[in-house]
């Protein structure tokens, strides 16, 4: 069992660090093996994949990528995913920033109680919301519209987005907005011009986290988006997996492309990961 106790001595004894580093390199490869093989296989033909002789292909082929571009509505799914994710992110960021500010600056009992409501939202089983909402949205003609999914996603994002905003706003001194208010700004103006501007990195982190969740979500989208023209990537790939179970090449190319945006956005916020994961969970 390792402990920090030895961190000081280990910095001097460099050889053990390299051993540990090598061990972690192996762990990283083993853990990510499914992802690595998926990416490699996406550049093989399905026959090569099934023959399975070499892990690394002798020749790279883009045939799978051509196929999903020419023969499947993959890029439509892609665009839908972005539209839905961006819409839901904007809506939840707007609502969560205001609520996070209320939680940060006004310690009234009712406002504090709102944090408990958020915890309830956090653990509310989605399926329970989906049954009545499917019937309601169908009667309102909202099934197969992006709006239905955007509304649901924005609420799923609310708890952690609000908690993160509150944590960021807590770190900004109240004196700054009070100074702005003495200069004649209203509190809302002070919030938008001073507090929100100073929490720029925080706003960016919350935005990208929300986007990541929205982009990755499957269950809600599968119930409300039933037309090829409206489906998001997870729903589209699931359909594809059902229909062409054995076309591994195309499936892996589609999954690899689907992973890329999540991967890029994750790299942008990975420094805030601890914050996002733990802040809401632990502080409540």
């Amino acid at each position, binding site marked *: 069992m390792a402990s920090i106790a030895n961190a000081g001595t280990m910095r001097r004894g460099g050889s053990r660090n390299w051993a540990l580093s090598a061990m972690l390199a192996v762990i990283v490869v083993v853990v990510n093996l499914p992802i690595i093989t998926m990416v490699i296989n996406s550049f093989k033909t399905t026959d090569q994949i099934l023959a399975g002789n070499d892990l690394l292909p002798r020749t790279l082929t883009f045939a799978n990528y051509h196929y999903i571009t020419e023969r499947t509505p993959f890029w439509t799914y892609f665009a839908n995913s972005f539209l839905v994710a961006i819409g839901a992110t904007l809506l939840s960021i707007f609502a969560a920033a205001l609520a996070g500010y209320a939680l940060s600056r006004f310690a009234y009992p009712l406002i504090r109680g709102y944090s408990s409501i958020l*915890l309830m939202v956090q653990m509310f089983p989605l399926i329970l919301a989906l049954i009545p909402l499917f019937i309601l949205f169908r009667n309102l003609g909202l099934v197969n519209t992006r709006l239905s999914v955007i509304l649901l996603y924005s609420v799923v994002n609310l708890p952690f987005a*609000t908690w993160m905003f509150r944590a960021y706003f807590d770190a900004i001194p109240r004196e700054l907005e009070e100074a702005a208010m003495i200069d004649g700004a209203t509190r809302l103006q002070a919030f938008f011009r001073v507090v929100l501007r100073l929490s720029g990195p925080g706003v960016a982190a919350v935005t990208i986290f929300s986007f990541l969740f929205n982009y990755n979500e499957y269950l809600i989208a599968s119930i409300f988006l039933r037309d090829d023209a409206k489906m998001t990537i997870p729903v589209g790939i699931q359909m594809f997996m059902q229909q062409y179970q054995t076309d591994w090449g195309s499936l892996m190319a589609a999954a690899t492309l689907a992973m890329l945006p999540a991967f890029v956005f994750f790299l942008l916020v990975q420094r805030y990961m601890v914050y996002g994961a733990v802040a809401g969970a632990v502080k409540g």
Partner: protein
Amino acid sequence: MSTQATALERYRGQPAAKRPGHDPLPYSLLLPSLLLIGLINVYPFIVGFLYSLKDGSLLKQGDFVGLANYFQLPAMSDFRHALLFSAIFAICNVAGSYAIGLGLALLLNQEMPGRGFYRVALLLPWIIPSIVSIVSWRWMIADQNGLINQALDLVGVGPIFFLGSERWAIFSVIMIKIWRSFPFMMISCLAALQSIDRDLYEAAHIDGAGRWQTFRDITLPQIAGISVVLWILMTIWSVNDFETPWLLTQGGPSNSTENLIILAYKYTFTRNDVGTGSAIAFVSLIILMVLAWMLLRRQARSEV
């Protein structure tokens, strides 16, 4: 938006002192969130409960049947199985992801070349879309040609039909869920480890405590509080998980990997029995509420 504008108007010219309850601005700040929660959570909660008291379908309301939908559940073998599977799934996932997450956090907590890269690379299973992880794993465990069966073939074992038999399907779903969950445990445990006062370790070192002793008497008690919170959170997420079992097996073979959420989904959307589906969804809500209540109590205690 208009409500905020009026709240803003009202706020103008008021004295700076904030009298709790009389200033409408803080409450109007919550308004957009509350409207969304009202539509997406409160409305389904009330209407869903009414559905669970009726024998309706997706197309017609149905008649009021009282609590009959609930009373039938204990006698249904698929419900009992789903309850059991939800419990096994949650327990195995919490234990597995915590053990792996804590182990990796302890390794990552030490100085080494490339530590930042490893920390990021080990988070990947958590951040990729569920459908991507399922596609990649399906190939790993695919019959005959999959990577795991090729490896097993080298040592003369197998092939194992992971998604063909009930036991192996349950094993596979749990394994993939642990794979998708451990990074969260790892990053949270790492944060907890880094917040431990280093003086404690210095003191233990001076007192001549060994590594295991230090771990048991300092590290573990120091991260116990957050660990309990993490276990409860992960239990909630496991009970609530639909995507991992559904995308991998759709609940099969037969109904071996059906949890409560999948069962409620199937009753509602494939068997068109909204009453039973809603009742099952409410049972899962009650289970989750108990877990959330434990979480709140725990948090209240750790804040003191």
